[in-house]
C-alpha cells in the first residue's frame, strides 16, 4: 500500500475512535448532570444553578421549579437542593474535564480507549 494512503487510513481510524470515545464521554457527562428531587427530573445547567442561587439570595427557602418534562415540582428545601446540584455539577464537570484531557493527549488508539493490547 502507498505509504501516504496507509498513514491517512491510520489517522482516520484514530480520529473515528477519538470521536466515538468523546461522544461516549459526553453521554456519561449528560447523565451525570441529571438530578432528581421530589419526583421531578432536572438537568443541572449553569442556568439552573444561577437561578437557584438568585432565589436563595432573595431569601426564598422553597420554590416551584419546572423539571425537564415541564412539570411543576415543589422544591421544599431550596438551599439543600442548591447544595446538591452545585456539588453534582462540579463533580461531573471535573471528572469530564479530567477524562477529556486524557483523551486530548492520547496519540494512539490504545491510549484513547485505555487498553493494553497484550491484555486482550
Amino acid at each position, binding site marked *: 500500500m502507498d505509504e501516504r494512503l496507509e498513514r491517512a487510513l491510520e489517522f482516520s*481510524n484514530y480520529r*473515528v*475512535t477519538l470521536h*466515538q*470515545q468523546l*461522544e*461516549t464521554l459526553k*453521554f*456519561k457527562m*449528560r*447523565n451525570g448532570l*441529571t*438530578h*432528581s428531587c*421530589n*419526583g*421531578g*427530573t432536572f438537568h443541572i445547567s449553569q442556568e439552573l444553578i444561577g437561578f437557584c442561587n438568585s432565589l436563595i439570595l432573595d431569601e426564598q427557602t422553597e420554590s416551584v421549579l419546572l*423539571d*425537564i*418534562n415541564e*412539570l411543576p*415540582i415543589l422544591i421544599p428545601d431550596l438551599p439543600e437542593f442548591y447544595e446538591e446540584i452545585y456539588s453534582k455539577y462540579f463533580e461531573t464537570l471535573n471528572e469530564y474535564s479530567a477524562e477529556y484531557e486524557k483523551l486530548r493527549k492520547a496519540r494512539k*488508539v490504545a491510549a*484513547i*480507549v*485505555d*487498553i493494553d493490547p497484550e*491484555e*486482550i
Partner: protein
Amino acid sequence: MFAHNNTLCNYVEMAIGAAAMAKHFLPETSVSLVTDESSMSKIPSAKMAQIEELFEHIILKEIDWNSDKENIKVYKDTGYHQEKAEWHNTTRKSVYDLTPYDETVMIDTDYLIQSKCMDLVWGSEEDFRINKDINYLNNTKTHDDQFLNPFSIPLYWATVVYFRKTERTRLLFDLIAHIQENYQYYKYMYKFKGDLYRNDFSFSIAIHMLAGFLENKEFNSLPFQYLASPDRDDLIQVKENELKLLVGIPSESWSFTLINVNGTDIHIMNKFSIGRHLDKILELYL
C-alpha cells in the same frame, strides 16, 4: 428481570451477571427474577447460591411454549456468526401482577449497570417512564430505531421500563396484553414488518393508544439516556466500572473500532459476547 432460557442463550446466567452489577452500583435496590421452571431446572447448584444471594424473589411464570415456537429470533455474534432460536419474551405483559414492589424498574438481562443513574427514577412524579431515544456507540441511529415504520408511530424501547402501581399503569399493561394477544391485527394496523414478537412494539402501540392516538408527552422518558451496543458489536474486555467493545460499522461488517464505556449503563445486544465474560463479571461484582 425476566429470564427465560432457550437453546442458545442462558438468560438466567446472564441475569445473575446483570444483577451482580446492579447490586454493586445500586446496593439499596432489591432485585427480583421472573423465570420459568424449565430454565431454573438447568441451573447448577453452585449457581443457585448466587441466585439466592442476588435475588430477593424468584417468581416463576410459565411460558407459552406453543406460541413461542413461531417466535424465532436471529441471534448475531458480530457480522460473522448468527444462529436462530425461539425467543421467550411474552411474559412481560404480566409484570404488573408479578412484581412484589410498588415501584418497579423492569430491565433486560443484557442491560449492564455501571452507574447510579437508575436511582434517579425512584419516587418519580410520573407513574410510567420509558425511553424513546436510543444512542448507539457509533452514532448510527436509523429510522427503524425511531419509528415502527417510515409512516408510523415513534418507537419506545422496553429495555428499561419504570412504573408505579396505579390505575393508569394497570390499564397500560392490560392493553399491552391485549395487543400481544392480537399481534397480527396490530401489525396490520400499525404496518410494521417482521414476524418476531417485540415488546418494544407492543409498548409503543399501547402508549400511542393511551395517549389518545396522538404523539404527545403523555409518557415521558427515564431520567437517563439509553445507550446501546447492537449485536454487530463485540464485548472484548470487562474491568471494574469499564467495558471495552469492538464497535462494528453497519456498511462494513469486517470493520471495527474500539470503545471504552466506563461509568455508564449500556444495553449489550450481543448476548454471546456477554456469555464469554460472565465469569469475569461475577469475579468483579459478586
